[in-house]
């Protein structure tokens, strides 16, 4: 799976790491829905660490469509709420 971290670049993530990413993603969704700022920040940090640590970085010269796009690493809780609330399912 090709994952882009906005403002950073693309990574290729495969195998077990994807399951783990899915688990972290659910936790992040729960934290955001519950208005849990600390929880969101923690989960988001873990998601980024997982992708950077277990994924392999694609060179900037390789133009591939991403399967998944992550917000910029310095996205705040408020920005995340705003970003995700645009999706047609009530989060706030």
């Amino acid at each position, binding site marked *: 799976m090709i994952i882009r971290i906005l403002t950073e*670049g693309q990574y290729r993530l495969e195998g077990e790491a994807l399951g783990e*990413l*899915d688990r972290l993603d659910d936790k992040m969704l729960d934290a955001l829905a519950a208005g849990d700022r600390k929880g969101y920040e923690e989960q988001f940090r873990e998601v980024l660490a997982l992708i950077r640590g277990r994924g392999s970085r694609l060179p*900037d010269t390789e*133009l591939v*469509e991403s399967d*998944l796009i992550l917000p*910029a690493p310095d996205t705040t809780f408020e920005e995340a709420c705003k970003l*995700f609330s645009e999706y047609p399912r009530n989060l706030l």
Partner: protein
Amino acid sequence: MGLLSRMSTIFKAKMSKILDQVENPQETLEYSYKRQLEMLQSVKRNLADVVASKKRLELQVIKLKDSQKKLEDQARKALELGREDLAVTALERKAAIQQQLDGLEEQIKGLETEQAKLAAVEAKLQAKVEAFRTKKEILKAQYSAAQAQVKIGEAATGLSEELADVSLAIQRAEEKTEQMRARAAAIDELVNSGILEDALEPADPLERELRQAGAATQVQAELERLKKEVGKG
């Protein structure tokens, strides 16, 4: 995937809207680069403004120190002439100037902090602009290649992602810089209007009185010192 797939959906929806409006990505890249250079210039100007404000305050400090020296000389002369009353007045003025000096030094320290922060933003932005310049050329070449091959599929989508990503990175750097500039401008305004100086004056009457008493003790001590110096102590 929950949240992350949402993010991807939103991003892609926005991107396709942007792409519809963009006829020539190469022109967009050049325009974006120009905007970044302008932004960098404006940060540099702002940094220069902060440095100028600091210099103004530093000159003020030099002037006040000169006045202090003059007042001390006057106090010494007054004592030599046996006019202790005049010496006390001169030393009182000197003490008042000292309080102004303390306030100014505090402000200079504040401006130094702002200067350091702005310099950090400038360096960051400079690096980003430099990286963008290189990336811009690569992207332009790739776009031309994709166009030549009439390959609209994956490469074009990847390219548009890159474009959107790069412009987002710059937008974030700009937002952060704007915040910094606003803060620096606010400090400048406070310095110019004298509010910052007022704010340093204690509002509490007790504290004010203690300060005055402190200044009076200082005046007395200096009077004694000068008396000894001129041999009248």
